[in-house]
């Protein structure tokens, strides 16, 4: 019965062997228009990403500027408005007694084109502070320590008259760059600069600047991290994957803000199948393709020239095998963050974009489903990954100071793709989200 089936099957198969009907012309038109549509339109992330990067950078730089400059003057203004400022130890006003030389000195410090603070000497004792009473004057100007005062323009008349008491005299003038550095009346320490909340610009002109600058310079460090992650794709046909990243990320800090960038290598793996159409190997025979006859004393001797012909089953067979494809990505993140220190610990949060480039793709070759089989076609059923994708990375964690220059870092990470990681059929978007734990060591220069 089976032979009969096979024979009838063979007849049916032969009927369709050369069956090549002409498809309607409209099909090609539809295919062509489908092909024009198939390249996905420029992803919105192509436009959004540069905007995100630029806005992030602007916000960061703006915040930094605010922190270094505007914030100082703002806090000074608040201080000045609140009460008289008492400075007991500073380069300019560090003498024990207010003398004519002090006045002269102050006159030297200021030029005459703008207003200067009105100083009210409330005490002349050696251990008592010099009190600077604020007078309402518009516009406000800044003194040597960045304090903002408001003076009375009417008091300008007394500006060059040493005999006029300071409490009744206003001085006009401009800061003379470099003059204060020449004063030998003591040094301003970093602690003083912090205590009096001096602006960086003004402190830079004082003899304590080097120490201050040492505490306020950009700090560089480099981190070596390892980051296992679990990635989930929004497309149900793609299984969750586990990836591992090794990163070298230099970091520059400006007080509490920092920027981190560098290189990461991410290794990941996709599960898939390969479907093989093949013909079974049935055996071989020697095919005679030429015969020669040589006449010898013993008669005619034929010589047969042969080659081996391998015989395969004409019926297609189909086999599905599991496989794993390996991928290596080169990633360049640009992260911006904020850090808060307490003791040996510091907490931080950071965010930023990252570009991922698929640099190595390793899909194992399909194995032979049967010995000596003839493979007709191999169909890899493995998710197709895009060569470049953009991601947004977020992280928050802590550093622990292990030694003077070393700290340990641990942070949960989250990332989501802005440009899909997978190219799915029919233009679907294979966006992914990943959760991971990043751990590593930082070296502080």
């Amino acid at each position, binding site marked *: *019965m089976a032979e*009969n*089936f096979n*024979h*009838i*099957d063979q*007849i*049916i*198969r032969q*009927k*369709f062997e050369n*069956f*090549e*009907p*002409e*498809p*309607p012309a*409209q*099909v*090609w038109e*539809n*295919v*062509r228009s*489908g*092909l024009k549509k*198939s390249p996905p339109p420029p992803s919105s992330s192509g436009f959004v990403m540069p905007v995100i990067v630029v806005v992030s950078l602007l916000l960061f730089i703006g915040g930094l500027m605010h922190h270094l400059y505007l914030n100082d003057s703002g806090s000074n203004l608040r201080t000045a408005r609140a009460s008289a400022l008492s400075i007991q130890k500073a380069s300019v006003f560090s003498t024990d007694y207010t003398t004519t030389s002090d006045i002269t000195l102050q006159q030297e410090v200021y030029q005459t084109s703008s207003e200067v603070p009105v100083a009210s000497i409330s005490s002349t004792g050696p251990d008592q502070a010099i009190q600077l009473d604020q007078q309402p004057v518009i516009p406000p100007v800044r003194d040597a320590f960045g304090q903002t005062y408001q003076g009375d323009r009417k008091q300008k008349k007394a500006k060059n008259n040493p005999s006029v008491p300071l409490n009744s005299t206003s001085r006009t003038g401009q800061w003379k760059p470099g003059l204060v550095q020449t004063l030998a009346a003591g040094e301003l320490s970093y602690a003083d600069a912090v205590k009096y909340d001096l602006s960086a610009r003004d402190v830079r002109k004082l003899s304590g600047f080097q120490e201050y600058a040492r505490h306020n310079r950009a700090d560089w460090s480099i981190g070596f991290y390892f980051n296992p992650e679990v990635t989930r794709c929004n497309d149900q046909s793609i299984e969750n994957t586990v990836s591992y990243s090794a990163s070298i990320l230099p970091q520059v800090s400006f007080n509490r803000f920092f920027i981190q960038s560098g290189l990461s290598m991410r290794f990941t793996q996709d599960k898939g199948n390969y*479907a093989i*159409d093949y013909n079974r190997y049935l055996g071989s025979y020697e095919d005679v393709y030429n015969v020669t006859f040589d006449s010898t004393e013993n008669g005619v001797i034929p010589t047969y020239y042969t080659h081996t012909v391998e015989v395969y089953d*004409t*019926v*297609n*067979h*189909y*086999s*599905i095998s599991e496989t794993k494809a390996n991928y290596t990505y080169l990633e360049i993140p640009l992260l911006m963050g904020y850090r808060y220190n307490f003791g040996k610990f510091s907490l931080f949060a950071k965010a930023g974009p990252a570009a991922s480039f698929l640099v190595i793709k390793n899909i194992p070759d*399909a194995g032979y489903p049967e010995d000596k089989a003839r*493979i*007709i*076609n*191999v*169909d*890899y059923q493995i998710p*197709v990954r895009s060569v470049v994708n953009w991601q947004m990375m977020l992280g928050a964690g802590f550093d622990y100071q292990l030694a003077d220059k070393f700290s340990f870092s641990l942070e949960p990470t989250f990332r989501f793709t802005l440009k899909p990681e997978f190219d799915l*059929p029919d233009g679907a978007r294979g966006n992914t989200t990943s959760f991971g734990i990043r751990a590593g060591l930082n070296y502080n220069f």
Partner: protein
Amino acid sequence: MYSDKELIERCLENDPKAQELLYKRFSGRMYGVCLRFARNTLEADDILQEGFIKVFSFLKDFRHDGSLEGWIRRTIVNTAINYYNSKQNEWSETSIKMAESYQSVSEEILDKISTNDLLNLIHELPEGYRLVFNLYIIEGYNHKEIAEMLNISENTSKSQLSRARTALQQRLIQRK
């Protein structure tokens, strides 16, 4: 006349003429495949269209391990399978004995019948029967392979083939 390899290279450069050439080279044979799997010409047109869009979209993944025609054929067959899988066929098992009378269909009837008539008879088969019939008898896959492709059991594949044979035989006899 371009070789398959040259044609692929030009298609990968998005050369419209090469794409049309490739389509014309294989569309006839593939339309034949589609017509066998489809219920009518409209469905065959859809499958051919969708299949060729996939062919052009994934041509970069063709690894030259086998013939281009084999790869395209496989893509078209997969498209046809997906087309009907999406309709959530209900597969049912039946006794394999039902097909025993298939042998009674003489070779004469089959020899006399034209390909188009045979195609019409295949079109009349229910979807599940038609899929298994095409995959087993014409494409040459065995039941284990069909079971993997259609995500059904081997017994289901066998029973579907058995029913397909019976149904085809009845139609052939009626036509006689």
